[in-house]
């Protein structure tokens, strides 16, 4: 069943359109910056963007920071919100269930598929932005503005100063890709749950996005500091900690924890609702 769902995901034009759009934003930004040489000063604008003029190989990190707050969650919410509701609308849900595919298996297959989609999207953004960054800005320039000097020989400056070897950089990027993928699973689980509640794919995607926007508002609100550690977006930016030397693990671990909690709660809710639901579409 998981294979079938993956096949459906990969054969669907929408999947590739959304991945292409996700990759297009960093490319567009890179072109603007490369043409104008107007990178935001350090400490302002998107993380890492200030450094890319001097080292194009840091651009994947900048690109992930660009797509993370809005683009990626929107794409995930659309795919996850469509997962059950979309099948219900086209009527294929009833034919899948009478094949038979058990309802629990279908939910798990959907979650695995969504995870695969996020991973494919994040990896695609990383790879295309690396190529874009190196092409537009070159790699390993002699010095970085606002940062301690970069060591010659292809090493990259970490946010904390000491330089990273290429191997370390690759490890850090893999870690960041993994963390961002997991960060999206909370949204995915919320959208999947809503998708079992309604037959409207649009409704469930927007519902999940509303939950995210609400969370982002509360994260910045001091009066809501009591609930802040439990908000799904609280640790989203913790992937930046992978680029510190040494890696700052506390927020990363908490980020994994909170996403695991959201996935567990909303997957259970989705299962409880879906397995007892009358399929009338």
């Amino acid at each position, binding site marked *: 069943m998981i294979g079938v769902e993956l096949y459906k995901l990969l*054969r669907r*034009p929408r999947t590739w359109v959304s991945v292409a759009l996700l990759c297009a934003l960093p490319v567009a930004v890179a072109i603007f910056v490369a043409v104008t040489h107007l990178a935001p000063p350090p400490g302002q604008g998107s993380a890492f963007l200030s450094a890319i003029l001097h080292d194009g190989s840091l651009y994947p990190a900048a690109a992930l920071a660009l797509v993370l707050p809005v683009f990626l969650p929107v794409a995930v919410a659309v795919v996850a919100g469509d997962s059950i509701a979309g099948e219900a609308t086209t*009527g*294929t849900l*009833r034919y899948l269930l009478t094949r*038979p595919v058990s309802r629990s298996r279908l939910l798990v297959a959907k979650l695995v598929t969504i995870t695969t989609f996020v991973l494919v999207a994040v990896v695609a953004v990383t790879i295309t932005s690396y190529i874009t960054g190196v092409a537009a800005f070159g790699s390993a320039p002699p010095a970085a503005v606002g940062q301690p000097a970069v060591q010659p020989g292809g090493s990259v400056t970490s946010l904390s100063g000491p330089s990273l070897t290429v191997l370390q950089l690759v490890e850090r990027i893999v870690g960041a890709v993994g963390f961002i993928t997991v960060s999206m699973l909370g949204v995915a689980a919320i959208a999947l749950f809503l998708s079992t509640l309604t037959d409207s794919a649009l409704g469930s995607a927007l519902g999940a996005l509303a939950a995210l926007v609400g969370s982002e508002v509360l994260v910045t609100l001091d009066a809501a500091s009591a609930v802040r550690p439990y908000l799904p977006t609280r640790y989203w930016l913790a992937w930046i900690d992978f680029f510190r030397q040494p890696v700052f693990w506390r927020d990363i671990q908490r980020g994994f924890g909170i996403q695991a909690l959201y996935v567990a709660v909303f997957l259970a809710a989705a299962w409880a609702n879906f397995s007892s639901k009358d399929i*009338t579409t």
Partner: protein
Amino acid sequence: MIVTHSLTKHFGHIVAVDSVDLAVQEGDRYGILGPNGSGKTTLVRMLLGLVYATSGEIEVMGQQVPRHVGRVLPEIGALVEEPAAYPHLTGRANLALFDAAGPSGPKSTRRKRIDNALERVGLAGIDRRPVKAYSLGMRQRLGLAAALVRSPRLLILDEPTNGLDPRGIRDIRDLLIELNKAGTTIFLSSHLLGEVEHLCTRVGIFDLGRLVVQAELATLRTPTGRVIVDSPDADRVAAMLDGHVESRDGARLVVRHADAAELNAQLVREGVRVVEIGPQRRSLEQIVLEVTSAGSDQLSQEGGSSR
């Protein structure tokens, strides 16, 4: 094959299916008739485990539904309301996808089974077009093919000839009769009288969620003990059989008589010309109209529909 005991389903305060005792035997061609909104589709969905009953029991091929529905579904081919497919994939890819989704569809025979099913429904020459380019009739045939890929023992079909032209309807009817002769039990629901009358051996008639009639079609249609005579000499016939003529409409007479052949011989002996003569049978239409009320799509003021 299918047995239900006082099966009931409420949607909120609406009673969609009301204490239905259904009995479908192996080898039947069973047709469910009834006005729109009389609960046919809800019944079909309950048999397939898509909708859960409020109360009552369902047994399909000896297994409790919905508890063990997973054990019987692999042997059931189903078409529930309109067919559905992934629009951007070809028909063949759709069939392969649905076959792969279920448990243990033997992969080695998949291609052959799909080809076979497509040929049976008249789509053997199917090309690389995606399903979104299909006509309504092609989609309907594809939906039937999907139900046949596993060579099921039981076919549960909800409105199987929707969207088909007269030839298509005829093709599908012939196909279903052929499958039935090979041992497949067929259970279909329809609001088309002709479809059920031509195809089914047993009928159940639904009205307002209740199963009001369940019988062999032949039993329902036994002669009424009257003979219909069509004769240009209708006046002479009326005079001859005075007292036995129940009604007259021009040249057409309804005569109370047990044996049409006997009556025919008698008329011919008297030199009466007969265009047409035969025992009167109630049509399925009459039976359905007698036992059902207005469908739920008709909302008249004085409770023509309470639902």
